[in-house]
């Protein structure tokens, strides 16, 4: 004869039991560690550059209606400094002496250590005069306020860092502020031209 099943062992425990969260917490802590490890803290930005468009200068009747011819502002980076040119011609050198004015670049390299450490840069003298470049481009911007395009070209051995610095110098003028207290925008439409 079978025994009557025990009442005591079949009673369900109605006490609320707490969920064991410890293994779940283990997983969450591991995932957090992984995410923190893989997320890079470095803040990155972007500079827009477009490739030169060959043979697409005329846009039909639209270009004929324009009164002003395009400025076609160009900056050439050489070992000696920056040369600024536009449709009208090449800007003469700012240095003193006949040779600097006729043969040298518009903004030659400088030996002044104060200028080399300006704009949070630490470069060995002689270094590129970015402050001089900003001031010169600001002068041009005042004469041509609607112009935003700039062609940048360089000698073959010029480093990429110098190019980025030139693009920074051309994009905004930190010495003048607009109505929102942001640096004055200058030539932010960069076009890369092939080597000299």
């Amino acid at each position, binding site marked *: 004869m079978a025994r009557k099943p025990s009442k005591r062992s079949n009673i369900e425990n109605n006490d609320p039991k707490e969920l064991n969260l410890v293994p779940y917490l283990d997983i969450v802590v591991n995932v957090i560690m992984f*995410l923190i490890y893989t997320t890079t803290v470095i803040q*990155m*930005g*972007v*500079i827009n550059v*477009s490739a030169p468009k060959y043979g697409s200068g005329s846009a039909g009747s639209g270009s004929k209606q324009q009164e002003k011819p395009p400025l076609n502002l160009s900056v050439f980076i050489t070992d000696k400094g920056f040369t600024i040119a536009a449709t009208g011609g090449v800007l003469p050198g700012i240095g003193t002496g006949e040779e600097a004015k006729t043969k040298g670049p518009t903004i030659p390299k400088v030996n002044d250590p104060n200028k080399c450490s300006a704009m949070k840069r630490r470069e060995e003298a002689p270094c590129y005069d970015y402050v001089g470049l900003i001031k010169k481009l600001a002068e041009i911007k005042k004469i041509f306020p609607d112009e935003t395009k700039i062609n940048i070209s360089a000698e073959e*051995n010029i480093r990429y860092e110098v190019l980025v610095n030139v693009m920074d110098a051309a994009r905004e003028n930190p010495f003048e502020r607009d109505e929102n207290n942001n640096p004055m925008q200058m030539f932010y439409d960069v076009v*890369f031209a092939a080597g000299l």
Partner: protein
Amino acid sequence: MIDGEFYMESTNEKNVIKSESEELKGPPQRKQRKKRLEEHDYPLNITAMMDMMTIILVYLLKNYSTDPTSITPQNDLSMPFSTTRLKIEAAVPLAISKNSILVNDKEVCKIINGKVDPNCKEGKNEEQYFIQTLYNALDAERQKQEEIAAYNPTQQFKGLVLVMGDKDTPFRVISEVLYTAGQAQFGNFKFIVLKNPD
């Protein structure tokens, strides 16, 4: 009730004797209660900690998903600093490190002594601007994107490349890479730079 049971279980003979002797010195009830509190094992309340961890996890996952490109810093690729304020968009990553050119983290050509390996160019001609292996990789990428665009009109091919250059890369290498990308119909470049700490 539970506390009492626990106290009964955890006390040993020595403690009982000690507490009996202490009973004579001070108020007996308070001493006993204090002792009971000291011996009680309090478990850590994990629920509150779990709450906190879940919030951190959700925050991190959200940050992780909004990052359009996974740019892993490499030893031979130190990017220059810039004052730009524009943010990164998703596009084809093209890295120019000290030793190689990479498309989508895959090496397509080597850079030897600051010059593109002539073996990557047609006819091994050093003077040429066109890098054949880079063109092949970018052309495959363009075909892939156009195929996606055929099924999904919102994902149109824009010819956008994210260029990550090492700060010591010579201009010749950059212009060769940009020229080749232009040939593969990638005409809009976004140079990735590190933001200047203000």
